[in-house]
């Protein structure tokens, strides 16, 4: 059940052939539904459990403690003078955004099977709304990060103003992955076994618990930067820790480019499989 929200004087329904592009006008018309779905996802996440908020606080703090002890104190990874807790925390904020929203968005189409088989709307807003709900958690984590910065006497400096930009880039990369995996999951139900693997292993491949520039040999750098999360995490560290932690720019832009390609292809793949969703879900 749905009302087409446009004033469209005439609408034609016919088989779509060939390559389907993204209909941004339509997505814009359904922005309110997108808002409602994101609002629902947030409500549900924090309603079902009173531990919800506590867990959101506890999880990154515990991880920071483990990483600081393991990589900072025991393995003595280079820190370039910054507190190890802040090095990992600054990376954890985008990483958690990515991994938490990916595990939920990859399953989001299947979880919305009922709505999908009853109502029309651009399906892309389903993974998009799930990924957007990650902003709430990111907000909480950011406040925690500020507290940690105060504890470790890390000064707040102007680069911090760039943080929203990097957070938005995190959203785009997460949404790209969400679009890919949610569409794949409709067609191939064993994809859901792949996602936890990515989120577990990904943390160590992605430079979350360490500064990768010191570890990855020079000739492997560009290869390493094919990971779209490298740019986002380097950006976060840069804006939190200051100019000394400036990203390795060629790698940064390569990583960003990979993320962008993933986003475009993800949305395209989603769009081109979308029309079959109601029939096979």
């Amino acid at each position, binding site marked *: *059940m749905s009302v087409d929200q446009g004033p469209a004087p005439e609408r034609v*329904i*016919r088989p779509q052939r060939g390559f389907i592009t993204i209909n941004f006008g339509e997505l814009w018309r359904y922005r*309110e539904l997108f808002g*409602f779905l994101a609002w629902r996802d947030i409500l549900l996440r924090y309603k079902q459990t009173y531990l919800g908020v506590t867990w959101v606080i506890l999880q990154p703090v515990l991880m920071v403690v483990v990483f600081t002890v393991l990589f900072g104190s025991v393995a003595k990874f280079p820190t370039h003078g910054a507190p190890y807790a802040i090095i990992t925390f600054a990376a954890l904020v985008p990483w958690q955004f990515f991994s938490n929203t990916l595990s939920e968005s990859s399953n989001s189409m299947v979880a919305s099977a*009922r709505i999908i088989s*009853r109502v029309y709307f651009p399906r892309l807003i389903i993974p998009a709304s799930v990924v957007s709900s990650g902003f709430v958690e990111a907000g909480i984590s950011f406040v925690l990060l500020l507290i940690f910065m105060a504890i470790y006497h890390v000064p707040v400096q102007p680069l911090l103003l760039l943080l929203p930009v990097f957070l938005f880039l995190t959203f785009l990369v997460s949404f790209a992955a969400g679009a890919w995996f949610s569409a794949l999951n409709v067609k191939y139900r064993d*994809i859901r076994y792949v996602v936890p693997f990515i989120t577990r292993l990904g943390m160590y491949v992605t430079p979350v618990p360490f500064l990768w520039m010191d570890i990855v040999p020079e000739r492997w750098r560009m290869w390493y930067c094919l990971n779209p999360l490298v740019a986002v995490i380097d950006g976060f560290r840069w804006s939190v820790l200051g100019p000394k932690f400036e990203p390795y720019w060629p790698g940064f832009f390569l990583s960003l480019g990979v993320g962008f390609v993933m986003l475009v292809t993800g949305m395209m793949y989603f769009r081109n499989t979308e029309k079959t969703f*109601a029939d096979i879900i």
Partner: protein
Amino acid sequence: MAVISVRQLGKEYKLGAQMHDTLRDQLTALFRGKKKQVEKFWALRDVSFDVEQGDCVGIIGRNGAGKSTLLKILSQITEPTEGEIRIRGRIASLLEVGTGFHPELTGRENTFLNGAILGMTRAEILRKFDEIAAFAEMDSFLDTPVKHYSSGMTTRLAFAVAAHLDPEILIIDEVLAVGDAAFQKKCLGRMSEVARAGRTVLFVSHNMAAVSALCSKGIYLERGKVAATGPIEEVANIYLRDALPGGDGGNQFKRGDVRGTGEVRFTDLQIMALDGSKSVVAGGGLRVRLSYEGNTDNVPARFFVNIYDAQQFRLLSLDSLTGGLPGPFPKNGSLELTLPTNFSLTPGRYSVELAALVNEAGADHVPSAMHFEIQGGDFFGNGRQLFNSAACLLRTQWELNPPTRVS
């Protein structure tokens, strides 16, 4: 002006193949170079019709005739395989009430969410909220999670939201079949108000009474094709004649050669509701009228009426002797067999077999004399939908015994 025009619409489904593959299967298939055999069938083919502004059109047809597929294509949920539809105006489709309701959310939250899913804007929902709450007859529970609601309450709220949709074209599936009778009536009233307000309504239902009351025109789908269109009375009559027995009994009663001695021969069979109407409803009772011709007067015959389900399982074998009519019978005559209202077969398709014995010898046998359909109805008088999990329905009495003391 036609607000909906449908041209050569077709939808093909793939059968047999498992719909969602696993990546593993696909990869193994790739290496083995095997292609899965897929059977295809057309759920709709070459369907064309126009709906004029302000029309209220009933779409009727048996299960599997393609009604739901047509609705899904009109609602843009699934894409047609061929043909096209042109729609002028804001369209809303109700294929279900309460889509998107979440048990953890409160009535108020669900109203907003469901309204948005239905296509209402935030401003629209805010404006109509009090009206919706009043229509659902619940204001003190709005901030309680829906999981604590009774099923009736949830349905009422879901209906209330749906009833406040305000599109130019409204497509309604058989959603009125749930909820208690009084609330159903209220919703039907609301729907006909919508229709009278000059909006275009497409209504799909098995409930011929509701269709006839609500609609002025009809489209009858049969095996994925349009079998008839026109004024609802005409289309409904064609449908009833085709789909249901007894309408023109003579046409429907099919028999081959006499199998047996021929001392009595069946000449006609009609099946109807107790009030003589053609539509047999679960819980409305059933009347079987059969006519025969004999060779002589005072035939010592015994008549059998056997009822089979769609899987050709014999559900009932009813005979005139045990039914209290031992005969003998006149040369030509007609018999009436009545199935009571407190018992019913579950809604579905059935077939009737007729047999007659004279002096224990087979006189006539018509294996598949007629097919008939039992429609869903309010068998238990409480507006609840019927479970089709068993062959029969029976009104029974349940009592709770007072606790007994074990000494």
